[in-house]
């Protein structure tokens, strides 16, 4: 009988682990209906990062409404959009923050979003309101631009064409157009400038690209670590370095091709069980209070006209814009990425 004891101990141990894990497992399941309602927001990486606005928004909205908000990062904007259209699983969020104007048309035909009635919509800059049904509403905007490290001893490029010059070999970081909205924006930029010849441009650009990163965070992180002197970002990015590092070392370059605009949108999913509360949240996102801290967390311009710009934005200049749409959003991002991958 003595011999059986270790055996029994093993079985008991396994059983204990099993039940412990089961009870813990119960706790990780989102508790539905218990206590105060909780809103789930799907968004992209930098929105929830340490320097992003998510924490402040969650706090502000809880103060106003008493409701908790949980942010879930889905990667960059492209990955976020893909998650919404997952083949096996419907999105279980209430709110989506961070689709952009190039994804707008496809997002609206998907019928994922519910129309919204928002008080603060009246204060939003009129030219940003691209969806007359108010299912997706703009909360901030900016201009794409390449950021240049002025201490890199390399001459700044003046146009998209300049980027293909041999002196920029492996000096440029861009984002993947399949997974990130800046990447998609860059694709649209090249299509606006080169029209049908965009594939050819990507081939010529290929030697200059050091990395095509899955998200803006990764690319900008590589850049600030000094891996390359040029990165695709926004004309507003220098404000970050002004505010946090008090430096004007990183400059947004003005290109002769003009600069595409990016408008970022938020919406409430029609499958949400908390539509009214979710609508309130989006209204808060557009409010003057929330919009006034977006510039120094999102590093974008606020969509609300009454929100004031911080001092750090004095280093930001507005460039001539160019209208840029993706020709075929289902095909071109993959094609573009494959051009860079294969011509390596």
């Amino acid at each position, binding site marked *: 009988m003595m011999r059986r004891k270790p055996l029994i101990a093993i079985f008991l141990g*396994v059983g204990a682990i099993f039940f412990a894990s089961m009870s813990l497992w119960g706790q990780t399941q989102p508790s539905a209906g218990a206590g105060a309602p909780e809103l789930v927001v799907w968004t992209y990486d930098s929105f*929830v990062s340490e320097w992003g606005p998510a924490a402040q928004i969650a706090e502000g909205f809880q103060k106003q409404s008493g409701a908790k908000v949980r942010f879930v990062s889905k990667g960059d904007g492209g990955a976020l959009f893909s998650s919404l259209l997952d083949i096996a699983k419907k999105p279980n969020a209430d709110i989506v923050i961070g689709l952009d104007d190039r994804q707008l048309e496809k997002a609206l035909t998907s019928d994922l979003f519910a129309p919204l009635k928002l008080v603060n919509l009246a204060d939003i800059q009129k030219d940003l309101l691209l969806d007359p049904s108010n299912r997706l509403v703009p909360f901030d905007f900016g201009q794409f631009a390449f950021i240049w490290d002025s201490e890199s001893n390399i001459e700044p490029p003046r146009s998209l064409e300049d980027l293909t010059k041999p002196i920029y070999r492996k000096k440029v970081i861009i984002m993947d157009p399949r997974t990130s909205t800046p990447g998609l924006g860059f694709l649209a930029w090249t299509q606006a400038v080169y029209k049908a010849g965009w594939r050819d441009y990507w081939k010529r650009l290929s030697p200059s690209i050091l990395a095509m990163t899955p998200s803006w965070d990764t690319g900008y992180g590589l850049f600030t670590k000094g891996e390359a002197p040029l990165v695709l970002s926004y004309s507003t990015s220098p404000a970050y370095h002004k505010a946090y590092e008090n430096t004007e070392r990183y400059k947004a370059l003005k290109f002769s091709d003009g600069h595409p605009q990016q408008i970022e949108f938020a919406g409430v999913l029609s499958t949400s069980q908390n539509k009214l509360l979710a609508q309130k949240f989006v209204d808060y996102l557009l409010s003057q209070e929330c919009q006034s801290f977006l510039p120094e967390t999102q590093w974008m311009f606020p969509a609300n006209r009454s929100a004031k710009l911080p001092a750090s934005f004095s280093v930001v200049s507005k460039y001539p814009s160019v209208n840029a749409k993706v020709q075929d959003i289902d095909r071109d991002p993959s094609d573009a990425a494959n051009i860079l991958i294969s011509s390596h």
Partner: protein
Amino acid sequence: MQSGNGSFEQRLGKTEIILSIALIAILSFSLAPLVAFAKNAIVGAGHASLLASLGSISVPVIVRSLQFTLLQAFASTALAIGIGLPGAWLAARFRFPGRRALLALAAVPFCFPPILVILAFILYYGKEGYFSAFLALVMGQKNEYRGLLYSFWGLVLVHAFYNFPIAVHQISALWMRIPESQKEAAKTLGANRIMAFRTGTLPWLLPGIAQAAGLIFLYCFFSFTTVLVFGGRTGSTLEVSIYQALRYQANAGLALLFSVIETGFALLGIWFITGMTQKKQHALRDFGRRRELSSPKGSQRVLLAIYGILLLIFFIGPLVSIVVEAFRVPASLGGASHFGFGNFERLLKGFQAPLLKAIRATLTLSGSAALLATIAGVIAGISVFIGKKAGKLHFTNRIVEALQWLPLAVSPAVFAYGWLFLSPDRTISAALIAAQAVIAWPFVSRAVSASLQSLDPRMREAGRTLGASPLRAFLTIDLRVIAPSVAAAAAFAFSITAGDVNVPLMLGMSEIETLPLLLFRLTAAYRFNEACAAGLVLGLMTGIVFFLKEKAIDVA
């Protein structure tokens, strides 16, 4: 005698029936997701089906992906063997401090998930990394940095350093058994040292090298996270292509096509490995006990020292930098930093406090998966053993034995999405547990059947002559003997599942964030210091196998 034997067989028959039922359960558990995935990909469920998406499939893209997958796997394997061979020779011939540590390194690829090692390599070999800084110091000036890490050779380097300890461990174990006498005989016949090695040692060593190479090749062939992070634009492995097709093109048909091609090539690799394993066993049968180790002399000492220093610089250095960086707290993206617990604090108390939640999610999800895997693995392992013992391999036994190769043959994406299609309400966490368990049970099963085979059959006989039923004899003798290896295998299963980032990434899981997922997110967002803090926690969790008596390497 005759009648006693008959009743034993009858009783064995009963055990066999019970086992068969359990085996069928394991079988359907492992194969159901494959069927579900194939069905959904071909028929289509509210998305592009295979037939509908055939038109959008570009053959050159598939061919390029396959070419790249094979090329990087061959290069990585060659380099891993190249780095591993000197180590294998040293460990097989000499006694030296750190020899056991060198062999124990083989647990690294199994205990530390790729995402952690990737992070280490970025910190160390990146432009601002320690190694690069060291190089700049030695060379006097900063030479033109070419972004090696993000090139083809960077990828190969990471793969090679991740996998070379497997080569050291596997090859040295064989080398130790090859007697010097063969080589000496060749020498007395007038051969020079190289010739003597070629005729006296190499023929016996080659199957072992080939087997290790085959294994490393398969691991690199399926490489996902490393390529996802570093590959960027050098190329896309089949595994990454499957991920892109599923997550970004909503094209299950294309994913199916990629995974069928992948499995086809993986089966070739497995066929090669099993062939080489048999050859190796033949070679081993020719020799007796392993040789005594000798003390290194003169030039051999120099060689040892050089190998040790190179390993420290190139392999241990990156791992150490994780620990250092975990405690370095940056003030802003490009600004100053100081040392402290700030990163941990941020993860524990900061916005949404992800660390504690991630630890809990990892323990529960991977714990459940490991538990499932252990139960299934023990049953499968025992049945394979019994089948072999009885001399007649049952049909189900044969299948189970073949199924043990499953995680080396089928993309985790297929298991993950297959289970997602199967799970009620398409619950991601259920699919995650099931998919991870399917990937982990074969490791447990192999460990169990191997340790049962090493058991002295006389003990069981003795138990039976004393009147114990086969089942009872099994419970009291066999199970007690294999308990330590079951525990090691269970811990190993936990290591695999807890460190796995493939399945959650494939599933696009982020509502519940496990530790490797948190690590991936932080790394992808370039928040390295926080990533290191999370990585340290994950490393301590998965590294637990190191502290067990029976090491993970024996299991693997």
